[in-house]
């Protein structure tokens, strides 16, 4: 927390009673360590990401240790979470056998996205590190490689790309239009949409929360006394959106993982 304190203090100083509109600058705070180093520069979001990773690893480790044939409360809860990825995401899409094989990949994606999303509503952290492009892009790349690998494993290199780019059925002339479309949708739009969907959701969530909390701050302290009552409304909205952001954090993790398994399933089944 020590490193966050100056930034927090600076923020409090500038926002005393004023309305600070959220902006994209929020996601690119100044670096506080290794400044200028291409590899190790750290800023507020880097730190939030590291904290999320450490806490997630801790939870995963303790959860794995608590899992038993006859589980206790913690083990049961953690097993439900892994079981949700295994049964509700992978199992329904990939079937019982493949869902076991792809569970490590899908569970990694699910827990990573969830942990890095949820920091957006955690007090003091207050930002989701998935709102920077690097994390969603990396995860989308992993998903991208995973479904291509699944397709190649199932049909061979030639077999997979032939089935992906030249689906059987239409007359030969149609391929002039169809093949570019298929290429675009499968190999460009899939990773792009995975990245942007997650990133945009987290950015907009942060904007909403900052807007309502900042508005409350302004209405309560800075605004004329006739307006102070409205701060109750804006604070209520801020709380409601906090709850909504928790839901979105889980939902986006679910969607990202579900789409990854759907892409893998499509690559395996294509012929």
């Amino acid at each position: 927390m020590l490193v966050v304190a100056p930034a927090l203090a600076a923020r409090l100083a500038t926002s005393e009673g004023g309305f600070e509109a959220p902006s994209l600058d929020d996601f690119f705070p100044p670096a506080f360590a290794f400044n200028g180093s291409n590899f190790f520069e750290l800023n507020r979001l880097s730190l939030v990401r590291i904290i999320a990773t450490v806490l997630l690893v801790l939870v995963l480790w303790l959860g794995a240790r608590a899992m038993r044939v006859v589980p206790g409360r913690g083990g049961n809860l953690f097993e439900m979470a892994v079981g949700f990825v295994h049964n509700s995401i992978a199992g329904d899409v990939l079937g019982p056998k493949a869902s076991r094989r792809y569970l490590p990949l899908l569970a990694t994606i699910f827990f990573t996205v969830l942990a890095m999303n949820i920091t957006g509503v955690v007090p003091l952290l207050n930002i989701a590190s998935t709102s920077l492009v690097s994390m969603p892009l990396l995860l989308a790349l992993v998903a991208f490689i995973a479904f291509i690998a699944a397709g190649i494993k199932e049909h061979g290199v030639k077999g997979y790309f032939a089935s992906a780019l030249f689906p059987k059925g239409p007359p030969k002339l149609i391929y002039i239009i169809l093949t570019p479309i298929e290429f675009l949708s499968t190999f460009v739009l899939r990773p792009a949409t995975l990245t942007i969907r997650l990133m945009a959701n987290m950015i907009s969530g942060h904007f909403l929360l900052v807007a309502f909390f900042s508005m409350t701050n302004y209405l309560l302290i800075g605004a004329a006394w006739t307006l102070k009552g409205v701060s109750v409304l804006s604070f209520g909205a801020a709380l409601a959106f906090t709850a909504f952001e928790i839901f979105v954090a889980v939902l986006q993790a679910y969607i990202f993982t579900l789409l990854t398994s759907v892409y893998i399933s499509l690559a395996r089944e294509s012929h």
Partner: protein
Amino acid sequence: MITAAGAPAGIGLFIPPLYDIVLSVACLAVIAFVVVKKVVPTYLTVLDERTAKIEGGLRKAAEAEAQIAEERALAAAQLEQAAADAARAKQEARQDAEAIVADARRKASAEAERLLAAAQAQIAADTKAAEVALRADIGSLATELAERIVGEALTDSALAGRVVDRFLDELSSGVAPTGGERP
């Protein structure tokens, strides 16, 4: 230490800086390591173990059930056997009782016949003796009557009738006609 920073413009928003990529890869690698090496293997092991335990439990339950059914069948067979034994014993006892009763009845009836035969023989002997005595009596009586009739001057038929009547009266009153009237 803190230097100014700001959002990159345009497409720059979608091109991550190198340090961000490094950190993302590092974080993802750490998480993936824990999930792949620890969480998923533990989860699948626990799941399989539980499945095996449940299957084993179900099999054991089925075996126990079969054993119970077997034992129950055995008990039922034994019960049936016992019932059959009891029935046979009862039957034998009844037969024995019938035999004993029949024997006793036969013996009693033989005894009765014997007693009857003895009584009849006794009666026959008595009758015979009575007949002999009676015959001797009748002979002497008839002789006496004849003497009396002859003795009373056979001329008086009224007298003869009276004598006969008196004789008969004496006979019926059980008194042996004596020679009171005898001349």
